[in-house]
């Protein structure tokens, strides 16, 4: 991919609101040269602030000298405070210029310097690069490190475990069609309970049988992290268009469920309707509910950052 070798930059197009803000600040200055300096500084700060907004980094204009009337009058500053990090200096550079001079008042108390190229004619800006240091008081855009360094400086690391795709994208399977169960058509992963479950289960699940109603019962073994969990689903046709569903989870080894394991019932918009959580010595958890035959539902099993989803439809 040839594109990947290009330095990382970001474009900003100035809207009326951003231009007016810069004009408002520059109108406070009697000296024309100072007014122009304030105008460009304000544009540069707003360009960087927009990028921060896009990437979800919180900024604090109220804590920035560029946003304080007396401070921006006395100093040549284009600082932007980033919450919990420190101040960025957002230096404007006119289109065509190659070297950005850093005013002496910006050489202390900064976490880094961003060069913001301003194209006045087209009301555009480009975040060109980021440097953590400015020891010589000038940045040359030819030797400027790209924006990756900025992201490193202001974005918090997300813990590595959360970056494993497995835990982010829940494991999903195709819809299980319950109606087919009544015709004895089962997906091979759904098996007869007596073939799968330990002896301890058999006594508990067979009580309160309504012999007269059509009923099917199947079990699927789920891999939830390092644990094997048996999900039992019992479906009973209680009326022409109504099904009674009993969901139970068991530990596959017949002992107890992992503590903190959660089973949720989700509706077709994936909102949680019911849930149950395993305590320290539970050997099963259950949910019981009725649905119309048209309804979709899902069962979500959660253990810490592992999520497994099974979807059902009649």
């Amino acid at each position, binding site marked *: 991919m040839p594109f990947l070798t290009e330095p990382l930059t970001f474009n900003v197009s100035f*809207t009326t609101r951003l231009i007016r803000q810069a004009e408002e600040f520059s109108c406070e200055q009697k000296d024309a040269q100072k007014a122009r300096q304030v105008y460009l500084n304000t544009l540069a700060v707003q360009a960087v602030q927009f990028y921060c907004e896009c990437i979800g980094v919180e900024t604090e204009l109220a804590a920035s000298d560029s946003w304080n009337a007396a401070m921006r009058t006395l100093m040549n500053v284009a600082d932007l405070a980033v919450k919990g990090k420190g101040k960025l200096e957002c230096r404007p550079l006119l289109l065509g210029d190659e070297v950005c001079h850093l005013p002496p008042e910006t050489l202390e108390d900064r976490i880094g310097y961003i060069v913001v190229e301003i194209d006045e004619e087209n009301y555009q800006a480009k975040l060109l690069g980021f440097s953590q240091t400015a020891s010589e008081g000038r940045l040359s855009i030819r030797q400027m490190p790209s924006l990756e360094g900025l992201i490193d400086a202001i974005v918090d690391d997300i813990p590595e475990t959360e970056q494993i795709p497995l835990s982010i994208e829940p494991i999903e399977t195709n819809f299980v069609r319950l109606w087919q169960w009544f015709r004895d058509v089962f997906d091979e992963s759904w098996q007869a309970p007596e073939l799968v479950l330990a002896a301890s289960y058999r006594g508990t699940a067979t009580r309160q049988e309504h012999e007269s109603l059509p009923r099917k019962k199947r079990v699927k073994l789920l891999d939830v992290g390092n644990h094997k969990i048996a999900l039992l689903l019992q479906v009973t046709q209680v009326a022409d268009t109504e099904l009674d569903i009993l969901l139970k989870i068991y530990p596959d080894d017949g002992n107890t469920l992992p503590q903190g394991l959660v089973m949720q019932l989700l509706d077709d918009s994936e909102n949680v309707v019911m849930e149950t959580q395993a305590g320290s010595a539970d050997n099963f958890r259950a949910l019981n509910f009725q649905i119309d035959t048209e309804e979709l539902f899902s069962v979500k099993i959660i253990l810490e950052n592992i999520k497994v989803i099974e979807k059902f439809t009649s």
Partner: protein
Amino acid sequence: MDELDSYLKQLSELAKQHPPGSKRRIIAVTRLLAAIESSGKLYCQGKYDYPLEVYHEAIQAVRTYIFRSIDRYDPTRAKMMTWINQKLNLEFKSAIKKFQKEQQGEVSLSRKTSINDGDSQRDLEDTLTSEKTPFLSDCVRQLIEEDIEDIFKNKFIRGRPEVNFQAIALHMLDGYGGRVLADKWDIPEQTLYSFFRRSCKNFKPVFEKYLRE
């Protein structure tokens, strides 16, 4: 699918592999946006029929949208450029509406002043001139010059009472550079600025208090 399309698709997949807010996702989306914008394939119908600011409203909204909604992009349903251009044209339409609304507001405002007769118009102008607010920069200068609490002149570099905040600030407001002042007082430029910057920070609440009045 051409080279650009497949590159954009790869970047969107790369972005989705990493959790929202993670550095790698941010880098991938930033790269994706740069590639989209430099492709020359952004298309916005009627872009030149309105002032540039209308298009800018729309493209800014698109940039925000890509960062927040990259997970919604489904490469099996549309090419990235198609997805983006659809969003851009939608945002452009709402930017036009907003622009037209503002235009109407301004028109009715100017009509209101134009129905005034000559006398009241002159009155209005007189009022505007007499109430013209002074430059804020002049207010800052005045505050430092008057120094009613005697704080600005009493803040000076150790052992050098003549190199005080008041003197430095007034010179700076007159446009003198730090180098000239450093030579004048024979102190290193960095020392001068360091002192000045710390003093400004120190006096920030004082300025805020007076400028509010």
